[in-house]
């Protein structure tokens, strides 16, 4: 690995602390779509990384009694039922929206939103690295956002409808 090469050696550049410089990212002055897209890209990226660890933790806990040799499946059953039980009791909904108020659905919906945004904006950034559409970055952003929203609702519809289809065909 080559030695770190400092091109400019100067110390008087800093005007504030590292934290205040970081917080000034969110200062809304002279900002365009590109800046907010980039901030959202970072935040969704952080969220997705944290989600992976939470996910591994929960799945690990679910299978803990299997690992310890008690093959009861009690932990698995209790966690899945806690996840899928509704947070608010709402009656009279059509059957497809049965699980809309469960904790699991909230997590899935948030995860999908972050994933879809991060993925589509990732395509945008890759296009810029290839030198495509840099001058039309705002148009590219809005087109991909609309595509993202369409895919998001498609995915939500699949989440809600597929379990019912699978269950009915199985029975």
């Amino acid at each position, binding site marked *: 690995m080559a030695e770190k090469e400092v091109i400019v050696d100067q110390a008087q550049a800093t005007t504030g602390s590292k934290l205040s410089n970081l917080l000034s990212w969110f200062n809304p002055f*002279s900002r*365009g779509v590109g800046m907010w897209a980039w901030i959202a890209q970072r935040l969704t990226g952080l969220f997705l990384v944290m989600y992976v660890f939470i996910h591994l933790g929960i799945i690990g806990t679910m299978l803990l009694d299997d690992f310890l040799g008690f093959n009861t499946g009690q932990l698995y059953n209790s966690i899945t039922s806690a996840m899928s039980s509704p947070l608010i009791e709402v009656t009279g909904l059509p059957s497809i929206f049965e699980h809309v108020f469960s904790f699991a659905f909230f997590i899935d919906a948030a995860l999908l939103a972050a994933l879809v945004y991060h993925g589509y904006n990732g395509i945008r950034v890759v296009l810029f690295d290839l030198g495509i559409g840099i001058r039309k970055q705002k148009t590219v952003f809005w087109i991909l956002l609309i595509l993202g929203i369409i895919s998001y609702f498609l995915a939500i519809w699949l989440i809600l409808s597929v379990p019912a289809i699978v269950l009915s065909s199985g029975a």
Partner: protein
Amino acid sequence: MSSTKETKMLTFKIKRFNPAVDDKPYFDTFELECNEGTTVLIAIQELIAKQDGSIAMRYNCRAGVCGSCAVLVNKKYALACETLVLQLNKKEIKLEPLPFYPVIKDLVVDMSQFYEKLLAIEPYLKRDHSKDPEAEILQSPDDFHIIEESTKCILCGACHSSCVSVWTDKNYLGPGALLKAFRFANDTRDEDKRQRIKRVTAEDGVFRCHTAFNCVEACPKELNPTEAIQTLKRQSAKQTLKFWSRR
């Protein structure tokens, strides 16, 4: 000449700060009669002449060429000499110095870090002058077209002040210097392209750019430093890969 001389009373809020006296920046409010030809710079000059002689402002050419009068006008980067106050369509005009730079006084900022980074990329033509022709070194219009836009940069420092990567990494070269680096690396008369690209490939070079497009939003000359940086990224990747395959 236009006969209708429409005048309007406008409020100017100017961010004042004298590090020798004040603890914190504060806003001073002024009222001024403006007509359709009044630019922000003329307004400030009139305020200095008639209302408060202690306002500090840096300016020089008054025609958008020298790049010394870049300020934040209503939270937008602009050249004070090119911004007509009536076209802003606001009753109140807020003037602030460029953010991130240390303030010397009022609207005057210390831009030495920007110039230092500019010097780091060696912004002058490098070639073997012994082989130069007798007359000018000619360049074809097609070759000039590649770098045409980047030659229009007036070094006002607005892009450098707006860049998020500059805020959190003080060694990052910044969009202004990298636009210049693009301009010289792609100049067909320059013979130092390899070294120039190598220089911007370093840790504090082009790959610190996250394509947030703040520099494009900020540039008062409507240039596109991001495109130049992206081109440099591709050129640097190409050159580095070639280097490895030759070994």
